[in-house]
C-alpha cells in the first residue's frame, strides 16, 4: 500500500458524505446502496464513521460528471479513466468524481459502482495506489462479485496505518438479530431482521436465487434477503417488493449476463431487473420449450461457465441454452444420473463461487460440477447465520 505524500488524513473520525447527483445508468436506490456499502468497507476496519447529509457541504462530496467537470482533471470519455478522488483536505479534498461517460451498474456488466466507489473512497481517506495486484487500491479495475468482496489485507494495513483498527471488529460470520415487528408500508423499508424461525432445521425453502451479489431465500409469502457486505439477513413480504407477484414462488434464478432474475410459479414465470418486473410478463413456461406435461418447476440455476440454465422438475432436469434460447436436445435427463448424491428431487438451488448448492428437503449439498461430486453436506440454513 502507499499513502499520499505528506500523509494527509482526516482529523475527525466522524465524516460526512453527500451525493450531489445520480447517474441515469442506475436506480437511485442502487446508487445509494453502492455508496453506503463502499463506505462500510472502510468503516468496518477503522474507527471511522460515515454519515450521509443532504444539504450543505460534506467532507466527501460525490458526483457524476463527463469530460470537463469542474476540476483540473477532465474525464476522457468511455473507459480509460473511470473515476478519481482527492486526498483528505478542505474544499475539494476528499471529494470523489465518477465519469458519467462510463456505464455504471450494480452488477457485472459495465463498471460496478460499489467496487469503484470503494476504491475512490480509499483515496478520499488518504490511501494512494497500491502496487499489490490483489489490493482494492490497485489502480486498474477488475470485477469481483461484490457479494464475495472482502477488503484485502494490504488495504486493511494501509488504512489502519492512518487511522488505527476498528474498536468493534466486524464478525466474520453472520449474526442472527432480534426479531422486530414490521410496521412500514413502503417497498424499500418493509423488512425485519432475521426471525429465529428461519433457523428451524425442518424448514424447506421454496426457491433461492442470487441477485446482484445478494441471495434471496423464498418461503411462502416472504423472502429473506442476505446482503453479504452488511452480514445481516432481512425478511420482506413478497407483496411489498413486487405487488403483482403471487406468494409461493417455486423456482428462481439469476442470469448475471443480462442482469435479470426469473421467478417461477406453476406454469408462469416473470423476469425482473433488480426489483422491477419487466413488461410482457408473466409468460408461460412452454415458451422455454417445456412439454405441456411439465406443470411447474421445482428449482433453477444458471451456470456462468456454460451459459446454461438447469431447470429441475420432478426427478428430471432440463438444460436450457441461454445463448441460443433453446432447450438442449438431450433434455430431460435424470437428476440422479448427473448429480449423484443430492437425492432424487431438488427444492432449490443456486450457484456461489463456482459451486452449486442444492437444497433437497431439509438437507443442503455443495456440489462441484467439475468433479461431479458432493463436496459438503450442510445445514439448510447455513447461509443465514443459524
Amino acid at each position, binding site marked *: 500500500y502507499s499513502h499520499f505524500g505528506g500523509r494527509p488524513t482526516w482529523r475527525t473520525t466522524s465524516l460526512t458524505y453527500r451525493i450531489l447527483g445520480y447517474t441515469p445508468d442506475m436506480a437511485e436506490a442502487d446508487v445509494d446502496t453502492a455508496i453506503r456499502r463502499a463506505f462500510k468497507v472502510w468503516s468496518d476496519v477503522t474507527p471511522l464513521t460515515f454519515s450521509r447529509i443532504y444539504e450543505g457541504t460534506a467532507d466527501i462530496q460525490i458526483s457524476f460528471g463527463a469530460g470537463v467537470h469542474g476540476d483540473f482533471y477532465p474525464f476522457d470519455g468511455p473507459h480509460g479513466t473511470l473515476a*478519481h478522488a482527492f486526498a483528505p483536505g478542505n474544499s475539494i479534498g476528499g471529494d470523489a468524481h465518477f465519469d458519467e461517460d462510463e456505464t455504471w451498474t450494480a452488477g457485472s456488466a459495465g463498471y460496478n459502482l460499489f467496487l469503484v466507489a470503494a476504491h475512490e473512497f480509499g483515496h478520499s481517506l488518504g490511501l494512494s*495506489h497500491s502496487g499489490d495486484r490483489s489490493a482494492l487500491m490497485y489502480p*486498474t479495475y477488475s470485477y469481483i462479485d461484490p457479494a464475495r468482496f472482502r477488503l484485502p489485507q494490504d488495504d486493511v494495513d494501509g488504512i489502519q496505518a492512518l487511522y488505527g483498527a476498528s474498536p468493534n471488529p466486524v464478525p466474520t460470520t453472520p449474526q442472527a438479530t432480534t426479531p422486530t415487528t414490521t410496521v412500514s408500508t413502503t417497498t424499500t423499508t418493509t423488512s425485519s431482521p432475521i426471525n429465529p424461525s428461519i433457523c428451524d432445521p425442518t424448514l424447506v425453502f421454496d426457491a433461492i436465487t442470487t441477485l446482484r451479489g445478494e441471495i434471496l431465500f423464498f418461503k411462502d409469502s416472504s423472502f429473506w434477503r442476505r446482503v453479504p457486505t452488511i452480514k445481516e439477513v432481512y425478511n420482506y413480504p413478497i407483496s411489498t417488493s413486487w405487488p403483482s407477484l403471487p406468494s409461493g414462488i417455486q423456482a428462481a434464478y439469476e442470469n448475471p449476463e443480462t442482469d435479470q432474475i426469473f421467478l417461477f410459479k406453476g406454469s408462469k414465470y416473470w423476469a425482473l431487473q433488480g426489483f422491477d418486473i419487466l413488461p410482457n410478463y408473466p409468460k408461460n413456461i412452454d415458451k422455454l420449450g417445456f412439454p405441456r406435461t411439465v406443470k411447474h418447476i421445482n428449482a433453477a440455476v444458471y451456470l456462468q461457465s456454460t451459459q446454461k440454465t438447469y431447470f429441475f422438475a420432478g426427478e428430471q432436469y432440463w438444460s436450457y441454452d441461454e445463448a441460443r434460447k433453446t432447450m438442449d436436445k438431450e433434455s430431460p435427463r435424470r437428476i440422479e444420473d448427473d448429480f449423484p448424491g443430492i437425492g432424487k428431487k431438488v427444492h432449490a438451488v443456486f450457484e456461489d463461487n463456482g459451486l452449486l448448492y442444492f437444497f433437497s428437503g431439509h438437507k443442503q449439498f455443495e456440489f462441484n460440477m467439475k468433479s461431479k461430486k458432493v463436496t459438503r453436506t450442510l445445514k439448510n440454513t447455513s447461509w443465514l447465520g443459524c
Partner: protein
Amino acid sequence: FPAVPATEDRGENEQLAEEYLKKFYNLNEDGTPITRKKHSPFSEKLQEMQAFFGLEVTGKLDSNTLEMMHKPRCGVADVAE
C-alpha cells in the same frame, strides 16, 4: 524515444503512452531540450510504470505495457506530485 517494433499504429500507441505517462507518471513536456542521457525521460517513466505494475522493466513500449495502459483505471496518479 526508445526503439519499438514497427507496427501500423505505432504513432497512435506512442501518443497514447505519452498521454498516459503524463497523466499518471508526471512525464513532463516543458519544452526543455532533450539532453544526451542514457535513457530518455519517456523511457525512464515507462520503466517506472512497468516496475509499479510488476511488468518486465524494459523501458520499451511492448505489448504488455500497452495492454496495461488500455485497462480501465482510476484517475489518481500513481506517483505523488
